């Protein structure tokens, strides 16, 4: 049964694999973690449609559960006013169309949101109705008025001989007569209230069931009209062989197939952990697999008996992986149009590993050992092969033998449509009827088409839709609070408290990354020293480079992932210290060799014996590190400082004449240097009124025992640490030659302005200054002043962070807080060294003077931009093009990891196991886990990023329209967009494709004296307040 595959088949397979690969996670090695939208493949769809799609493709939920939203309502993170407002807006014109009696669609939906509508499987529902009090008592949360109205209405109606209702059809009157004859009129006269309640509810339940039945018989012709409403249909949905066999036979083929593939793939992509490398690895995935397993007699898994035989046949026939795939498709009788779909579903059985192969294949530069092109296709071929072997064996065992007929039956198998939906619908109706006080006599007289409308309303407003409304209300609540805060801030007279008096020169200017974690540090600096100014710019500070630190072995790119740096920069020891450094380096090298051999010996045979004999001594560091992490690390640092890198180093920033290798462009040309400095200063609007001291601060994070450590670093540095960029920028900006050229361009930096680089560790709030020896003596007092301010500010920053940590205690003071965060960073057992971007929610692009004094709770990315210096909007265009994708990527990764931590995120950190030096698995054999862990996102509030741009709506609209990437994420509402007019101060929000005015309620934002007053004793998210007012 050899099917010769044509060239076009092969081409089709290749392109289908490429397009299927877009659905795989885009996460590369954990060594450099880059945040990106988890659902990047669906960005072409509007946000909520994409969530629906994701549900069918990934089986993951895109919204929180209804109960979680109710929890948010209880905590007042969602307000009912917002829920109602969102609901009204969502329904639009249809808001007031009447459904039953006087109840409108809005009423019904609002009721369904306010009260949890219980639902369950048919069996459970039957039990609930007959065994619990559901048919005898009203729901506890029914309004007493409705309850009394229902009971008295029913009593009035059924206490006379004739009920006098004009019933819609004969079947209704049949069951109604039967019910009435069960309880004769004379008996009814003797009933008390409880008996009437029972009767009313029974009647209600029966009418709801009858209504659903009537509507169901109508549905046949009604179907085409309603299908387009919400559920996107999935075209070409051939079930995977595994799914079909699972429903048919009840055995899971994936168990064996996954087990073998996980083992093999992790060996194939291993970056150097295992001591033996996979034989024949260099010949590619497929060939290596064949070579390894072709001669095996024992199958690698009990489901895969006969694998060796099959593989040796293949080896003899010399088929290519494409041919194998082609043949598998022929065997499964899958038409070419459905290939891509089938490949996608097959690859998504192990999305992490498949995605990693694709990453290594397409970005070999990012890994130690890349894999040859076409590896994903070969992986797919092997997977299909394994599935075929397992299926054939299974069918044989079941006596079905892999005949075409059996397979066809498998292929055509479709899951049985949900038979319980009618009962579920009736029960939902029953509850809504109680809550809305719909009287049975009204329901009994409804026409068929009315029933159709009511039922459609209820089915249409399913759990997803309800959660969607809650999600919109959650976002809307935060949006209102933030935008109101901004509006209130501009109406307050702030000149007396936070701004430096305009006549005076600022005491210093501090430029940090736009990162949400730097927001609090900026705020505290401003609170401690009101005469300072702060700015935000993407943390690579316009100096994209490959950088190699003095103690590093490789160049790493320090710039956003979308950029490819042209320049290499190296940190070297200054001349006087070079010889000393060379000897230290020898020592370090010797030490590393020893450490590595200890590490490896302990895993080996005889070395292990020797080490184990001395192993008792390892109890000392173990006990110390676990019980006294901070102390131990301090001793360790003292010890290491013996061979620490030299105190004085310099960066190779100038392009020397002696560059031998053409591709390794060491340093920048003068033009590049000038361009970089000019770019940053004009972008943030710092072109005049320079302070004597301008500090540029990069950031990063260092924590122990944390495989995801690089995810905590600077996103604008591609998961690296931004210190070198800050340092390089300052050195460039201090150069007379650069300043001269800048002055020619009209950007005059005063001679007495000195730029100083520094680094902020966001985990332990440590700071480090670069090139202090180059600070002119005239600036030393200014420097000392700044450093003192910084010491206070960073301690307060630590204090603000500690309010999120349960173990820090509520009333912790700044000094103790600093100690606490230092301990966290050094603690082996700490799974939450810091909360990273977990609080991100907004991004504000504009002048700091317009946000200064607003408590933003570390929730906003703050990019500086001065619209008054940007007449044609070019600056804004490039700022948004750089800032929005990065921030949206971070925000959406957090969003999805939070709403479904198991499928979009990587689950709990606790069972993680570093594998192949690339990623983490759960336990010993699982899929590679991508996304963020539960411990990282647990406090995150899933909000789409609220982008506020200080620009007119026309200008913003124009920029969004012309940039394809922005166009897609803004108009599909993957982020929320607001334009904040630089002149009038009015705010417009993007709704659909147009901006609408934001109508805030001014004057609601509270005023407090300092940040501390507001956050003390509170662990929850805090709303924006105005700080520093005189009240």
């Amino acid at each position: 049964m050899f099917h010769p595959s044509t060239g076009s088949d092969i081409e089709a397979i290749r392109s289908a694999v490429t397009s299927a690969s877009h659905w795989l996670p885009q996460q590369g090695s954990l060594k450099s973690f880059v945040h990106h939208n988890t659902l990047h493949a669906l960005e072409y769809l509007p946000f909520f449609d994409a969530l629906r799609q994701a549900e069918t493709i990934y089986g993951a939920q895109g919204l929180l559960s209804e109960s979680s939203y109710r929890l948010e309502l209880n905590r007042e993170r969602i307000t009912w006013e917002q829920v109602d407002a969102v609901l009204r807006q969502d329904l639009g014109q249809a808001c007031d169309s009447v459904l039953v009696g006087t109840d409108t669609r809005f009423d019904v939906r609002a009721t369904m949101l306010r009260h949890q509508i219980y639902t369950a499987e048919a069996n459970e529902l039957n039990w609930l109705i007959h065994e619990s009090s559901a048919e005898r008592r009203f729901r506890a949360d029914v309004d007493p008025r409705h309850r009394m109205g229902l009971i008295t209405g029913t009593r009035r109606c059924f206490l006379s001989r004739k009920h006098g209702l004009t019933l819609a059809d004969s079947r209704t009157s049949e069951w109604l007569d039967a019910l009435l004859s069960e309880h004769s009129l004379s008996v009814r006269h003797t009933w008390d209230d409880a008996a009437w309640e029972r009767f009313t509810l029974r009647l209600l339940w029966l009418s709801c069931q009858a209504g659903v039945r009537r509507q169901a018989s109508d549905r046949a012709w009604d179907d085409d009209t309603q299908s387009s409403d919400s559920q996107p249909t999935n075209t070409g949905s051939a079930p995977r062989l595994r799914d079909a066999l699972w429903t048919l036979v009840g055995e899971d083929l994936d168990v064996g197939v996954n087990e073998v593939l996980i083992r093999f793939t992790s060996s194939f992509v291993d970056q150097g952990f295992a001591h033996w490398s996979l034989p024949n690895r260099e010949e590619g995935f497929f060939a290596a697999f064949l070579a390894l397993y072709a001669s095996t007699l024992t199958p690698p898994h009990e489901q895969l008996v006969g694998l060796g035989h099959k593989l040796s046949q293949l080896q003899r026939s010399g088929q290519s992986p494409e041919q194998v795939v082609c043949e598998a498709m022929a065997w499964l009788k899958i038409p070419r149009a459905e290939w891509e779909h089938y490949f996608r579903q097959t690859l998504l059985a192990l999305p992490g590993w498949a995605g990693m192969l694709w990453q290594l294949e397409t970005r070999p530069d990012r890994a130690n050992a890349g894999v040859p092109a076409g590896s994903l296709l070969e992986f797919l071929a092997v997977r299909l092969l394994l599935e075929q072997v397992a299926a054939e064996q299974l069918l044989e065992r079941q006596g079905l033998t892999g005949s075409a007929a059996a397979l066809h039956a498998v292929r055509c198998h479709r899951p049985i449509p949900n038979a319980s939906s009618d009962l579920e619908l009736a029960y939902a109706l029953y509850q809504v009827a109680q809550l809305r006080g719909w009287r049975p006599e009204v329901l009994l007289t409804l026409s068929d088409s009315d029933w159709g409308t009511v039922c459609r309303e209820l089915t249409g407003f399913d759990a997803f839709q309800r959660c969607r409304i809650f999600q919109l209300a959650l976002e809307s609540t935060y949006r209102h609070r933030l935008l109101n805060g901004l509006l209130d801030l501009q109406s307050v007279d702030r000149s007396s408290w936070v701004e430096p008096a305009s006549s005076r020169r600022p005491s210093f200017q501090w430029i940090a990354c736009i990162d949400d974690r730097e927001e609090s540090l900026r705020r505290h600096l401003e609170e401690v020293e009101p005469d300072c100014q702060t700015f935000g710019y993407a943390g690579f500070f316009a100096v994209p480079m490959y950088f190699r630190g003095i103690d590093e072995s490789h160049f790493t790119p320090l710039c956003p992932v979308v950029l490819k740096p042209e320049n290499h920069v190296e940190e070297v020891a200054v001349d006087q210290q070079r010889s000393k450094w060379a000897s230290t380096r020898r020592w370090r090298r010797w030490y590393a060799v020893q450490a590595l051999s200890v590490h490896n010996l302990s895993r080996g045979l005889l070395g292990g014996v020797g080490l184990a004999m001395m192993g008792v001594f390892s109890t000392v560091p173990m006990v110390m590190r676990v019980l006294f992490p901070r102390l131990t690390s301090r001793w360790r640092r003292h010890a290491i400082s013996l061979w620490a890198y030299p105190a004085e180093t310099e960066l190779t920033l100038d392009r020397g004449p002696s560059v031998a290798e053409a591709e390794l462009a060491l340093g920048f040309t003068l033009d590049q240097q000038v361009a970089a400095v000019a770019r940053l200063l004009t972008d943030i609007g710092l072109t005049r009124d320079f302070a004597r001291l301008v500090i540029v601060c990069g950031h990063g994070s260092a924590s122990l025992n944390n495989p995801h450590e690089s995810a905590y670093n600077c996103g604008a540095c591609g998961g690296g640490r931004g210190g070198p960029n800050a340092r390089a920028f300052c050195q460039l900006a201090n150069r007379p030659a650069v300043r001269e050229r800048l002055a020619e361009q009209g950007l005059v930096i005063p001679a007495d302005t000195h730029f100083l680089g520094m680094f902020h560790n966001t985990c332990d709030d440590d700071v480090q200054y670069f090139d202090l020896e180059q600070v002119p003596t005239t600036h030393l007092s200014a420097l000392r002043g700044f450093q003192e301010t910084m010491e206070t500010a960073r301690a307060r920053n630590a204090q603000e962070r500690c309010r999120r940590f349960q173990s820090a205690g509520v009333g912790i003071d700044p000094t103790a807080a600093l100690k606490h965060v230092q301990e966290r960073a050094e603690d082996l057992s700490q799974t939450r060294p810091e909360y990273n971007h977990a609080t991100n929610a907004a991004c504000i692009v504009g002048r700091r003077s317009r946000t200064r004094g607003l408590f933003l709770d570390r929730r906003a990315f703050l990019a500086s931009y001065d619209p008054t210096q940007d007449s044609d909007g070019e600056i804004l265009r490039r700022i948004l093009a750089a800032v929005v994708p990065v921030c949206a990527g971070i925000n959406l990764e957090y969003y999805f990891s939070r709403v479904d931590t198991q499928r979009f995120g990587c689950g709990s950190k606790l069972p993680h196991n570093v594998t192949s030096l690339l990623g983490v698995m759960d336990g010993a054999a699982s899929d590679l886990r991508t996304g963020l862990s539960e411990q990282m996102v647990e406090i995150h509030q899933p909000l789409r990023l609220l982008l506020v741009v200080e620009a007119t709506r026309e200008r913003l609209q124009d920029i969004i329209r012309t940039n394809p990437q922005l166009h897609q994420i803004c108009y599909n509402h993957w982020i929320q967009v607001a334009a904040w007019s630089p002149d009038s101060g009015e705010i417009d929000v993007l709704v659909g494709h147009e901006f609408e005015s934001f109508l805030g309620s001014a004057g609601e934002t509270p005023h407090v004296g300092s940040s501390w007053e507001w956050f003390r004793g509170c662990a929850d998210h805090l709303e924006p307040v105005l700080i520093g007012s005189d009240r």
Partner: protein
Amino acid sequence: MIDVVVLTVVGAPTLWLGLLGLLLLVGCPIRESFLAHGTRLAILISLGALLTIAVPMFLLADWSGKLYRVGEIVNLPASNFHLRLEFMFDGLSVPMAILTHLLCGTIAAFATNYLHKEIGFQRFFLLFAMFWTGMTLAVLAGSIETLFLGWELVGLSSALLVAFFQDRVGPVANGLRIWSIYRCSDAALLLAAVLLHHAAGEGEFSELSGRAGWPHSSGALPADVAIGAGLLFILAAAGKSALWPFSSWLPRAMEGPTPSSAVFYGALSIHLGAFLLLRISPLLDQSQLLSMVVVGLGLVTTLYAVVVGRVQTDVKSGLAFASLTQVGLIVVEIGLGFRYLALLHILGHASLRTLQLLRAPSLLRDYVELGNALGAQVNNRLGKDGRKANGRWFVWIYRFGLERGYIDVLWATVVLRPLSSVLRCCRLLESEWLLRLNGSDDTPTKARQNSHGLDQWQ
């Protein structure tokens, strides 16, 4: 006085376990800090009491065993039979008990932070208390009954800790697999206990070593009993220490949270089998055959673990098989008669491996730092290009390692499948019987459906 001390050593864990179990049973909400402090306090109390015994022993270098009887459960003087809790404090048990307390204390402190906010925090500490109690009882046991009690607690808590993340399929399935293997070893231990009782009327270990005390032997048992019991003991030890051919459970134990993994294959649980062999080592002295079996088992395990460990790509499996290599060697040492060496080896290895396992999540960072110091990326591979080793034999060995010696698949096809088909037959018969007794006539279809359900369950 000394009885009070002994009671404190074994009573502290037992009471703490009982208290926790009771509180959780009645559904009392327990604060994290209470659990953390309580566990630490209990371990400190027990350790303190232990040291009051240990320090004089070390100072006087008096390693002769002291036997303490705590409770008499069954006493039948007529047939010369009794069953009681007995604890032995000698040169073997005291160092092991100190190690147990030290590691359990450290790991409890570690887990307090590590599992903070975890939904199963209470469950973890309950199981941890059970594990610690089991280890203490087993290590200090003076008779085989006491050992069995501890042995069971360790087994139960281990299996449950592996299945800690009970909402996922993998951990639960692996926990069950471990449990099934543990049951085999438990059965062997129980049989050995019965055999000993038959032969000697009691299960005290002093019976094995006579008056001389561990590790000397006086050959108190008849030769055939000694060999029979010895083989059963070896079987029990092999199951518990994941010796070949039971090694397949070892990587599966990684499903639990890191601290519990560290306790298992890193430190305590995996050495318990070796400890048992040490404890019964007087038996080994008596019989050349038993010693040879032990040496052989150790060698095979070591070779197996070395080969398998070479190809592991994830850090926890790598460490697991590294542990197994050393345990194999320890077993060889025991078989060869180097008792004190083996004891030292156990103590050192357990400490070292625990530290390595606790640090395992730092692997990426460590490798980057080492790479920076070396001036090149760390690569453990043999040969620069990997081209050297593509020979047929290498492929064969590599596959052997990657498939973990095919133990799993053989276990599944040779042991589990026949066993489950026998069980399925029984079930089929039973349901047919029942239906026939009920007088129903649609027997065959129903029965088939049942058996189908069983298939699914497997």
